[in-house]
């Protein structure tokens, strides 16, 4: 079977007034298999969001190609199907709310796809159960907390039954409680529902929960591997202006004090097991 996401020699340039352009992506090659949980990190302006917007044809390549489940995004006939396969959740929950009650908001996507009302009902119900918001179905979304609004946005994406959801910094405007709700839901979508996840984040601790970490710099993909492998290259990450997850940072410092710790130490529990 072909990989779910295939990106070949992708280049993208934003046009500017007066004929100039800013090259945002250069020579990106990447494949992601069905069911993977991938984190994407990199400094501001490195091209993370531009790359994400290519995955459901919000942007089309200037050169190279992007295929989703075998369908090329630059073919206009494929765009509808691709957007059904790849859902997006953005940073600011307030910008993603369109309706006056939670359930109407979640129904917005399937309604636009021309799905029959009984089927919409079923999908909205199961999406709200999935994110744990069934009790809030009749609430006005603006009365919810930031974390709950973000869960409404996730339910909205789920109601279109996507194979993959791209999360563009979904937690950066949330408090720790909201962040935990959203991250637990993302993890559950991946493990229980088999949904392919691409999580863009500035938090290294969040990236460490993925199976695979991609690092971008100046429009290029510069690192790709398991979290332990990527975070093992502390010097290189620091040179890109990125931090290490705190526990990985502590582990590396302790190694310079002569302590031998496995490279796989990523969490508090890993470290306690290694030390005690």
């Amino acid at each position: 079977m072909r990989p779910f996401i295939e990106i070949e020699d992708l280049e993208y340039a934003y046009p500017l007034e007066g004929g100039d352009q800013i090259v945002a992506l250069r020579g990106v090659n990447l494949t992601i298999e069905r069911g993977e949980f991938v984190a994407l990190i990199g400094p501001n302006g490195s091209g993370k969001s531009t790359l994400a917007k290519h995955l459901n044809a919000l942007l089309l390549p200037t050169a190279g190609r992007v295929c989703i489940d075998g369908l090329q995004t630059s073919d206009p006939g494929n765009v509808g199907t691709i957007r059904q396969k790849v859902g997006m959740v953005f940073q600011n929950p307030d910008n993603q709310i369109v309706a006056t009650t939670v359930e109407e908001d979640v129904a917005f996507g399937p309604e636009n796809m021309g799905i029959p009302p009984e089927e919409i009902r079923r999908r909205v119900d199961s999406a709200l159960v999935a994110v744990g918001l069934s009790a809030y179905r009749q609430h006005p979304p603006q009365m919810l907390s930031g974390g709950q609004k973000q869960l409404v946005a996730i339910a909205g994406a789920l109601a279109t039954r996507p194979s993959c959801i791209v999360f563009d910094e979904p937690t950066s405007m949330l408090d720790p409680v909201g962040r935990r709700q959203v991250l637990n839901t993302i993890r559950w979508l991946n493990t229980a529902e088999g949904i392919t996840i691409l999580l863009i984040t500035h938090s290294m601790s969040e990236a460490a929960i993925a199976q695979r970490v991609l690092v971008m710099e100046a429009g290029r993909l510069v690192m790709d591997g398991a979290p332990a492998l990527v975070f093992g290259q502390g010097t290189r990450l620091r040179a890109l202006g990125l931090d290490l997850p705190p526990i990985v940072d502590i582990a590396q410092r302790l190694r310079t004090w002569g302590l031998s710790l496995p490279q796989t130490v990523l969490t508090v529990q890993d470290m306690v097991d290694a030390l005690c």
Partner: protein
Amino acid sequence: MLIQVENLTHIYSQGTPFEHVALREVNLEIAAGERVGILGPTGSGKSTLVQLLAGLFKPTSGRVLLEGESIHGKEATARRLRLQVGLAFQYPEDQIFEQTVFREIAFGLRNLNLRRTEIEARVNWALEMVGLNPAAVAQRMPFALSGGERRRVALASILAMHPRVLILDEPTAGQDSQGRRALLENVGRWQRETGMTLIIVSHALEDLAVLVERVIALKEGRVVADGPARQVLSDAPLLLDIGLDVPEPVALLQALRQAGKNVRVDCFLPAEAAAEIARAWGLQEIVS
């Protein structure tokens, strides 16, 4: 005392089904030049408290005094007092509206009856304070700048007003780690150079650990802790009770202590925590 908050209570939509008590009988004092962090989850009343400190609206009951005068009192006095408090909301760059960086920063200054040369001097000073080169950016369109640069312009427009109290609501939200570090260093420097009083609202405990000396924690509109930053930020039971995450280095040291190791727990930064573990394990640093 510079700021006195007395029995401050604020209720939104009072008398309706949506009635919500945001602050309950809050009392606190902040001295001139103090660096204070305000900590609490969404809905704890942090934003209501700082907006009342800035005099943006009137509280349901209680008072906010700036050097003994009520910031919600007679209009002429209140207006003079409010000019001494600069408040930057979350994502302050979203509020930029002028055509050039210069006009954006000069906007508030035009209401102060300043001479043109004084306005120019303040704009240049403020740009330098946020690490932007006045000659390079003053005539540029704010929308042609990066998100991080726009945030610095928004902060410069507040600094240009020479506030005695600077309040920042989640100043590092949405910034990458380089942007965060630069912003925190800048804020620390402004505070040292001007001696202003700094109030930072954040749930990023690591940011507070670097910048402030005192932390006030809120839960459901009440002050539940007020003390030295190190003490409050490493109080794991308190943090969990108010719904915040314990910083990972503190969580690690707590777990080691529970496993019977004799370690301090008030280390928020990875470097401090590593040094503490090295000490407890009797390690010698290998100089490479």
